[in-house]
């Protein structure tokens, strides 16, 4: 939240209603994204996403083999932890902005983990004995360009699509199960199958009468209210939530929802195109 005068707010809102935002975009246009995957050598999957001039998120995935929970013996587990660097916000030592952002992230990510868009059965190795537990660490390096949750969900999906787990075989010996991890560093299986249906969160803000996607911090401050829409590639919604401080009419809510779903589907297609070359390269590596 930054301080804006009333005239600045009126300027932003009037511009959005005429489909013209401060940087020349239309209401439904996204900012260019810079995505760098597989850069951290100690992690199985990683991605770093830069949006606008100063929203920077790093997602790292480290797998672990654990015993499945009793209540879900054929499912794997995912644990997501978020942390925020101390110079993430433009104010010096502003813990409250960082804490707010982290709470928001934790809550949004936990909402769609419990839905059936995320098929945890694919992470199971041997029922009731072994399963993968993906420890996902999200580091917020900077958050001063707004749209943090959207950026994090794209980075998370990119990290999962390019994540490579070592190939593991289960051998049964006299009733006991043993795990053999392959020695070959190129013999791995990718999580692209598991992450194919992973949702991307789009946040749609209401500025006056206009519905705006991918807002920067100034636009988020003068927005009337916003809708967080996690969309899967097939167009299903998995945990929509209305945030921010004003109430919405039924028609507004439904039109913001449809705007969010369309924007989400476009982002999925974009991400697939960007990562296609990387994923096919990985498949070549495993054949060697």
């Amino acid at each position, binding site marked *: *939240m930054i301080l804006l005068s009333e005239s600045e707010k009126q300027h932003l809102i009037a511009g959005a209603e005429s489909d013209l935002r401060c940087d020349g975009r239309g209401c439904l246009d996204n900012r260019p994204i810079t995505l760098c995957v597989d850069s951290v050598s100690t992690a199985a999957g990683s991605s770093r996403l830069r949006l606008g001039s100063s929203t920077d998120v790093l997602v790292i995935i480290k797998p672990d083999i654990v015993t499945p929970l009793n209540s879900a013996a054929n499912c794997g587990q995912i644990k997501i932890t978020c942390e925020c660097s101390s110079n993430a916000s433009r104010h010096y030592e502003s813990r409250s902005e960082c804490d707010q952002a982290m*709470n928001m992230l934790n809550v949004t990510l936990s909402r769609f983990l419990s839905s*059936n868009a995320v098929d945890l059965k694919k992470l199971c190795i041997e029922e009731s004995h072994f399963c993968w537990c993906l420890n996902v660490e999200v580091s917020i390096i900077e958050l001063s360009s707004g749209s943090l949750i959207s950026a994090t969900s794209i980075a998370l999906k990119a990290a999962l699509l390019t994540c490579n787990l070592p190939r593991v075989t289960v051998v049964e010996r006299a009733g006991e199960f043993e795990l053999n991890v392959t020695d070959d560093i190129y013999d791995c299986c990718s999580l692209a199958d598991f992450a194919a249906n992973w949702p991307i969160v789009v946040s749609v803000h209401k500025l006056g009468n206009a519905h705006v996607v991918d807002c920067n911090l100034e636009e988020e401050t003068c927005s009337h209210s916003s809708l967080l829409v996690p969309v899967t590639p097939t167009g299903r919604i998995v945990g*929509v939530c209305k945030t921010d401080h004003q109430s*919405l009419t039924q028609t507004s809510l439904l039109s913001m929802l449809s705007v969010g779903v369309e924007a989400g589907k476009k982002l999925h297609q974009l991400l697939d195109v960007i990562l296609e070359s990387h994923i096919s390269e990985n498949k070549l590596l495993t054949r060697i």
Partner: protein
Amino acid sequence: MISETCSSVSFDETLSWRDLWKDILPSKQKSCFKRSNRKSEESRKFFAKLGVQSSSTGSCYYEIGNTKVVAAISGPRECQRNELTYVTIGYISCHVTFANFAYPSKRISTDACMNLESIIEDALSSVVCLTRYPASSIDVFVVIIDDDGAVLPSALTAASLALIDASIDCYDVLIGSSILIADDIMIVDPTKAEETQLENTADSCSILNIGYLPNFNQIAAFLQTGSCSPSKVADALQKSISCIPDMHATIRFFVAQYKNNKNS
């Protein structure tokens, strides 16, 4: 009923009785879902009592079916946050806890509480006239005693009634409602048992929780859990809102009764 442990009947032991009887059992069990005690578009009966807690500024006990929620308000008091945004307007902070006996077999994660807290804070910010409480914070404490479905809508309604008891200026009363969408079925105000049954049998199951302002016809809180297709949301929203005017009339009656008792 063929018992699997019965040894005098000779049948292939790898088949279960369901396989043998599957030609006779109805194949589409999910479309046979019917509620026994109320219609699919009817919500349960509820009860609200204001002023149940003596040491807080305002409080309310709200019960719908078997779900029981208590909300208490403390404030307005000096705002703990130093940001300049809160000099001219007030700030609502919410703390949600689940009673230890609400779920004896499982631990509630802090994420579940934070989820509810953020939604209740945002919803109440649109209901309370925050410009009348500059540089102040209003603390809302919600305790969920028993969970039988519709926890978020009950918490929203209870908090809103507690605000009325605390005589805090509000634009409208906030009434919560929930609806479950499972394949082709939509049922308003599902109980926990109905939720679990449809989650296990249906291909896709989703619950919409809504906080509604009846005088303005606006939505102050909206949370969708599970996975559903966006085309069903419009219809589901309409159905869940349709039972709110009756709830509003009953709530006005409860509030009037409480005010009369307080005056006399």
